């Protein structure tokens, strides 16, 4: 592995409280040295990256992606998905278990991390919370953890049954794992294909009410309270409603270990963006009302949200080119998350750059306890993103490194151009000159 010297850049490492002109030396996959500009001498064998005018920051961490391997390689593989991740500035992603077969065993967990998968950045598997994600019997969390899972979830489906959720929270707490809930009371959303509200009524589509999310979050928070002695960590995936935010805010005020993530599409778009049955605006949870979206933005600004996560969910074109009600849920997001977050959260809404980066790196890394990531302190992994926070560009879905193009953001203006993504000391992505 080549030694890399990054010089001339602005090091912005929110977790370490650093925002200054610094040079970095990356060696053996770790950050070996940090010093003032020009202070690190190149012993001759280091590859030198000129970061003049650029920001050097910990590689981004996305704790919610769907790479369709094993089982649906035509949508995405670990190789293609991680290539898209690298292009988007990510050096670590956590992969949901709803593959085919479902990741509910140590063998599959290990298989996902095997070198043959050709991952361009670090991929952390999330284990299925229940056997076959059926929501009944919980899996062997000790064995899954030993094989490398960083959390458990039935994502795509909720853990609906109260006794199962209670057991999952307790067992996960004993093994130091987080339970990630896809909060959707499917009894209320059956047959629904978009947010319940005026737009759904007008389009003649069955709606999915906001309460389907918030009521399950409220139920789960009650369980977390009842299991307080075990200090379980409960995390709400892709939070989309104002009412769920209220419940999460309250739980945190009460000192519970309750965290949440939001996706760029939920802080930018509303159900109006379904427009004329655009299947690339169909996902679960669905795009919500303007009031819900505003509450999500507010929660990002005031710190109730712990992380931005994409819920990157690739689907082939022919799968999305069908009747709206029949189209699968999900959109891609790895290549647009940074560009959208910088354009809207930072440039338009004035959230400080360090806060945006923290929501995309330090905080999600801490949330899943990914040691040595989300910071560039000496000794941590050499997971580095070097980017220009002001460069403006247009996203062209046709050029994606993902196998799929199902995004509502094709042609949108982005801010912040990725120049290099370095994963554990290796260049995973380099922008064309």
């Amino acid at each position, binding site marked *: 592995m080549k030694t890399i010297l990054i010089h001339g850049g602005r090091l912005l490492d929110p977790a370490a409280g650093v925002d200054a002109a610094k040079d970095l030396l990356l060696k053996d996959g770790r950050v070996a040295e940090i010093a003032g500009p020009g202070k690190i001498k190149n012993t001759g064998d280091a590859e030198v990256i000129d970061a003049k005018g650029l920001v050097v920051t910990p590689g981004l961490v996305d704790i919610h992606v769907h790479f369709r391997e094993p089982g649906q390689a035509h949508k995405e593989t670990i190789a293609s998905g991680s290539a898209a991740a690298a292009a988007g500035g990510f050096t670590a992603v956590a992969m949901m278990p709803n593959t085919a077969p479902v990741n509910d065993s140590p063998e599959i967990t290990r298989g996902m991390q095997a070198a043959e998968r050709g991952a361009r950045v670090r991929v952390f598997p999330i284990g299925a919370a229940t056997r076959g994600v059926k929501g009944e019997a919980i899996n062997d969390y000790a064995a899954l953890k030993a094989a490398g899972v960083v959390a458990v979830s039935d994502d795509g489906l909720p853990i609906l049954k109260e006794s199962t959720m209670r057991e999952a929270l307790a067992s996960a707490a004993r093994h130091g794992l987080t339970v990630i809930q896809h909060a959707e009371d499917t009894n209320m959303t059956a047959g629904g294909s978009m947010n319940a*509200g*005026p737009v759904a*009524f*007008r*389009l*003649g*589509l069955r709606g999915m009410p906001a309460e389907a999310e918030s009521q399950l979050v409220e139920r789960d928070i009650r369980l977390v309270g009842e299991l307080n002695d075990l200090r379980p960590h409960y995390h709400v995936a892709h939070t989309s409603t*104002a009412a769920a*935010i*209220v419940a999460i*805010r309250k739980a945190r005020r009460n000192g519970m270990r309750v965290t949440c993530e939001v996706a760029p599409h939920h802080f*930018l*778009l*509303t159900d*109006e*963006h379904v*427009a*004329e*049955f*655009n299947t690339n605006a169909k996902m679960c949870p669905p795009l919500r009302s*303007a009031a819900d979206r*505003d*509450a999500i*933005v*507010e*929660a990002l*600004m*005031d710190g109730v949200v712990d992380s931005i996560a994409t819920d990157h969910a690739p689907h082939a074109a*022919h799968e999305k*080119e*069908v*009747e*709206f*009600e*029949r189209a699968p849920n999900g959109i891609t997001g790895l290549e647009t998350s940074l560009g959208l977050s910088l354009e*809207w959260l930072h440039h*338009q*809404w004035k959230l400080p750059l360090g806060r945006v980066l923290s929501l995309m790196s330090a905080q999600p890394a801490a949330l899943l306890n990914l040691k040595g990531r989300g910071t560039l302190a000496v000794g941590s992994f050499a997971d580095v993103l070097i980017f220009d926070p002001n460069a403006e560009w247009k996203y062209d879905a046709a050029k994606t490194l993902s196998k799929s193009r199902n995004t509502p953001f094709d042609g949108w203006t982005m801010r912040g151009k990725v120049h290099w993504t370095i994963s554990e000391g290796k260049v995973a992505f380099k922008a064309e000159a």
Partner: protein
Amino acid sequence: MIMTTQANSSARRKVSLPAAPTLPFTHHPGSALSVEHFSLAEITHLLHRAHVLERENPLMRANRLARRRLGLLFYEASTRTRTSFELAAKGLGIDTTLVSNLSSSIEKGESLKDTGLTLKAIGVEAIILRHNSSGAPWLLEQFTGLPVLNAGDGWHQHPSQALLDLRTLLGHVSPRHFTGDAELTAETLKGYTLTIVGDILHSRVARSNMLLLPRLGAEVVLTGPPELLPEIAVTMGRDLKSGGIRIERNFETALEKSDALIMLRVQTERLAGLDLDLEEYKKNYQLTEERLAKYAPKALVLHPGPIIRGLELTSAVADGENSCILEQVHNGLPIRMALVERAYAALDALEMPTLFGQENRR
């Protein structure tokens, strides 16, 4: 766009929003997807063409679009809409081909996109689509590039039905508008109240009329039980510049103000998951002779069909003198001729006329 967000925290900040999409697709000018896409001037013209075509010598009329090709693509059972469109097309001389989901490759799992592309390759120039999924005609138009006439999609829209309902109403209210000799305006139906009765939730006929009649100044009243008429239905009227949409749960109160009624079929197949007692429904919302005579003796009674005698209305009302049900069926054919004619006129305007007719068309 700038708006202020309000949330639980004390902070209030200005948050600019990404613009809501302004119709990302450009529709084919010959398509009839939704009544929203028709200007009042266009509807006036359609009414005029319907009047002219209806009175034209059938032999002359059959030369208008002789040997052009049209596909009828039906994913749901339909009698009146299908036969009406088919006869309308044939009346203009068009060769039609019917593809239904029960006797075609659709049964074998072919996608709507591929079925549409196949029809196009056969030489079909426009497609009439009836589909059980809301929005399906948008998909078909997007992938074929052909004019698509929506013959009913899910719970969503049924534009030709709303237009024939309008023609029927105008026939009684204003003959000059009926023939398209007077321009429709936001005042044409001012002071006119039309009540839609019953299963609004599952009804594309209701949605289409709610999007059309208020634009002519009419007041649309919705009546029915909450299971079939959720409160949210009134939001359909929130951006109206004329007319209005409101809910009146009491059928008899609604009747007193009504100049016309659209009775909707009780779609028993949709009631499975709902907690609805049919006897209770009939008690509250069935249109009987007595109710009609007592509360709205002059009201026109419309129904998109098929009717279920003894359920949403009694046999006596269906056959009574207020009933316009067969008149609606009659009015459908000329309206659909005008819509089909419009589709081919748009096609011809888009492409250079050829000397050798259809064989050179794409």
